[in-house]
């Protein structure tokens, strides 16, 4: 392989990568279906979610730990909801530690989960498989 071809391929890939990154940082991810649910409280809740390392046990969109359930739709899931989430956050369980959080912190975390809930579905239970192996998501029933 000539040195010129090598350079062309290498720098071509790097240029595509930079363009791809910029588009992803902007238009590729600008659609947030739950924008209306972003509040100061939910923003604080997100930081608390990180501070207490909730992701080591729980998942958001199937990403995170496996000890506890995926929390993406804990607010809207049948048989669960805001009060259900709050009680777990406040008291913990046999597996989940009680972090002795203040009422404000509990509210902030719940507010964050309410925002997450409106962004989409996880796990996706209602979908259609297309001929090329891709899927079309539908609203979870």
């Amino acid at each position, binding site marked *: 392989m000539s040195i010129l071809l090598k350079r062309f391929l290498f720098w071509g890939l790097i240029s595509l990568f930079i363009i791809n*990154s910029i588009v992803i*940082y902007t238009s590729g*991810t600008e*659609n947030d279906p739950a924008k209306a649910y972003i509040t100061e409280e939910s923003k604080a809740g997100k930081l608390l979610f990180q*501070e207490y*390392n909730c*992701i080591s*046990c729980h998942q958001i*969109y199937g990403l995170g730990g496996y000890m506890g359930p995926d929390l993406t739709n804990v607010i809207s899931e049948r048989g669960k909801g805001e009060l259900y989430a709050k009680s777990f956050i406040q008291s913990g369980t*046999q597996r989940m530690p009680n972090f002795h959080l203040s009422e404000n912190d509990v509210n902030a975390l719940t507010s964050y989960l309410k925002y997450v809930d409106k962004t989409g579905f996880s796990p996706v239970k209602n979908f259609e498989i297309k001929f090329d192996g891709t899927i079309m998501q539908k609203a979870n029933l």
Partner: protein
Amino acid sequence: MKKEIGIVFIFLSITALLAGLFFGTISSFQFVYPGFFDVIPFFKNRPLHVSLVVSWIFLSAMGGIYYYLPKYCGLPLFSRKMAVVHIWLFFITGLLIITSYMMGKFGGREYWEFPAILAIPVFISWVLFGINYFKTVLKKIGQWPVYLWMWATGICFFLFTFTEAYLWVFPYFRNNLIRDLTVQWKAGGALVGSWNMLVYGTALFVMERIKGDESVAKSKLAFWMYLLGLTNLMFGWAHHIYIVPTAPWIRYLSYGISMTELLILSKIIWNWKSSLEQAKKDYYFLPFRFLVASDIWIFLNLILAILISIPAVNIYTHGTHITVAHAMGSAIGINTMILLASVLFIISDVTKFEFVNVQKNIIRVGFWLTNVSLLLFMIFLVIAGAEKGMLVIENKLTFQEIMQKIDPYLVSFAWAGVGIFTGLLLTTVPPLIAVIKYLRKK
């Protein structure tokens, strides 16, 4: 220490591996037996395990590069002092990270669960490594073998993806969940690609030394494979976020790019026969044996990776233990096997330490125990993950119901983990003793 900085990295890397395996084993038992070893709860154990194992990968790969460049590539290090500062900075930051986990202080991001402020010294240590590397290798005249490209790529992309992983500190990224998750996993996926570049470069280097044939690392095919790997590193990460509602083209692009890995798979199968003949010839040589094992694990993990990159399969496997099987299979089967080959190669070379038969046998038992346990470990995780995926989507069971059903597989997985820990302990203790003896003499 003055003579061989690489060996100090190797010493720390083995220590990090053993500590990481210890915390990992405890974590897996906490997973199946609530209340087990409550002194360090699971949410502290898991980051300890992840960070220490990631440190093993980085430290052993870096140690190899620091050792190989002056010794075998005829490229004296640009600055030995800079390498010493690098190791100290890495070590002290590592201690601070462990302390922060123990104190329950987190940054709460996958791979980088430590407080964000500690990312600064980590970044600086990599900048030092990068300066030292480039100032050293840019002296080389003529065509670079592909492993020098791979190491350079690994360093540059680590610095880029590490920075990208911390874009969340800006509200523009943090406050939009879709953007935050996408950028986080774009960075996370490429980060794994960047350490793979360091590790696969190391594999090529060790293979070149064993074969004594320098043409392989300069061949056309080697460069095409490198470019294919680079393309996957840059664009093939979105299988992590197929279900996140991003712009659809992000998913399609990644799906298409991931399928190019079929080319790598074909090449492995194509090369199988000649590799087998070579394997028979060099099997007695311990580092080579680890490279052969990594070849088999690459084959198995690549099949798994390709399958879970197909959206119709991913929808069932995402967020299940199959993802863990893929991650662990790659980290232990591929990365650790290659890095152990490199570590054994360096230790035999630098210490002139001849392993006696008893030690060789201990390493061999460790080798087999690790590989057989890893196979069982992966099988149990794949079964647990497949069952979880089906039970969630088809049977729509609750989390508790699913966990109850897959519990026997998870218990078996935890015990297979003990086998891996024991196997790697047997494999690494003799070389660790050799390193300690060598460093004491120095």
